[in-house]
């Protein structure tokens, strides 16, 4: 697996983590502008969603264009999404809320905008924990695959979280929603096609 394009995954990881490192460094120096916490929240949230969509695009891209290399970086993209979602959550919990557990519980319970975002983050945890080859073997591929469809649920919740976050103009979140809908459509189309082919085989 590592023999072909050994540079691919390290490069994606490096490029993917560079903005996070930059945020951390500039944040520590107070160089993120007037409202640095808001800026950090916006950036980490956006990058989490972008990476999640990128990881979900790997299979559709293979189905449509026949490219196989994206499948090799899917795990890295998924883990990057988790890293940004984690950074997003930690920024909220520690820097924004000052680990005020009562306020955060109230937020999560009473505000759909936060409920949805928090749920998306929680869904990513089991996916990150079962991302190793060992875990795939332990679960067995079909079960692992079923579990990892949760990534789509997390992405839907992420888009909803984004839509509810903006004050007025939903253009940008709608764009991410459209990409997600397109990816889902390709997967559903493929599933339908497979099922038909199977049925045709049986009747033949």
């Amino acid at each position: 697996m590592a023999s072909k394009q050994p540079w691919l995954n390290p490069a994606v990881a490096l490029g993917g983590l560079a903005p996070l490192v930059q945020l951390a460094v500039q944040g520590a120096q107070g160089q993120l502008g007037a409202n640095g916490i808001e800026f950090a929240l916006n950036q980490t949230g956006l990058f989490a969603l972008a990476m999640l969509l990128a990881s979900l695009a790997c299979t559709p891209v293979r189905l449509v264009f026949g490219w196989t290399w994206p499948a090799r970086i899917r795990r890295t993209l998924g883990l990057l999404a988790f890293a940004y979602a984690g950074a997003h959550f930690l920024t909220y919990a520690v820097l924004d809320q000052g680990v005020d557990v009562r306020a955060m519980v109230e937020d999560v319970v009473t505000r759909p905008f936060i409920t949805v975002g928090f749920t998306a983050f929680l869904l990513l945890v089991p996916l990150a924990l079962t991302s190793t080859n060992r875990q795939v073997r332990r679960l067995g591929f079909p079960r692992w695959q079923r579990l990892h469809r949760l990534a789509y649920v997390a992405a839907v919740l992420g888009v909803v979280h984004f839509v509810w976050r903006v004050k007025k103009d939903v253009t940008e979140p709608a764009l991410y929603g459209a990409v997600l809908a397109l990816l889902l459509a390709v997967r559903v189309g493929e599933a339908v096609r497979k099922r038909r082919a199977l049925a045709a085989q049986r009747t033949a």
Partner: protein
Amino acid sequence: MRDKLPPEPPGSEVTPEKLYLRRRELIKNAGLFAGTAAVVGGGLYLLGMKRTRPMDGFVPDAGAVAQPVAPAQGAFDTSEPRTSYEDITTYNNFYEFGLDKNDPARRAHTLKTRPWTVVIDGEVHKPRTVDVDQLISSFPLEERVYRMRCVEAWSMVIPWLGVPLGKLLEQVQPTSFAKYVAFTTLEDPEQMPGQKSPVLDWPYVEGLRLDEALHPLTLLATGLYGKQLPAQNGAPLRLVVPWKYGFKGIKSIVRISLTREQPRTTWNLANGREYGFYANVNPAVDHPRWSQASERRIGDSGRRPTLPFNGYAEQVADLYRGMDLKRDF
């Protein structure tokens, strides 16, 4: 002489044959590694670029002219640390110039703030159409250091310069039918490119009940930090109502109308469930999507509790006696 060859490099410096044979592949891989990393990192950078980010090397409003200031009255001034001039002038909402909070500072230079005519009409005995400088010059400017609480749960402390709105209203003599004051922002998509997008119903309109408008805290501001108001902060004339959420503070005003009916205000029309006509700062009434119980003071870390009426309850709570502020939010 000819048989004296140069000394051979030591064995440790000789590239192993295996690596030597792969040298092209290694160089290629290093290039692909760097290229891919740059594409991924650059892609994220581009995606995030639209969002509010620090303004590198921005010098806000270098040409501002100082205005004469009457000594601060002090009675309404907060002694809390003032937000920096740079933060006040580079981080704010002014949708006429875009939706990001650094858009106003980057784009408001297209606004021509002089000459500027203000119309005062409606239920008044002495309607006026007057140049803004003439309008203001008849009153002494006062400095007021007010807290500013945005509905988005961030806040600032701003030393405004201006004239109490009540003094100006006295001059035009409201009729006995006047119950409300409606304010209108300039509508000119050439000067205000944000108006080319239908994100809000232009022009921006705000309103106050007449007693709110006459309250001594209510200010028509023409400056901040002892200087003329920069365009991005609503030059040449803007409203400041410190006990209400920031969006009530309409900017670049061209018309002040006294009315019998409650004005139909922009954010209230855009989303009445989230933005009320009164929009008094109230930690007990949350925005449907986020808490209003606390706020982030720009320049501070962490949050602080939000105060009823933004800390001006002592001065203004009487205006709302007998009202259900949860219903009339």
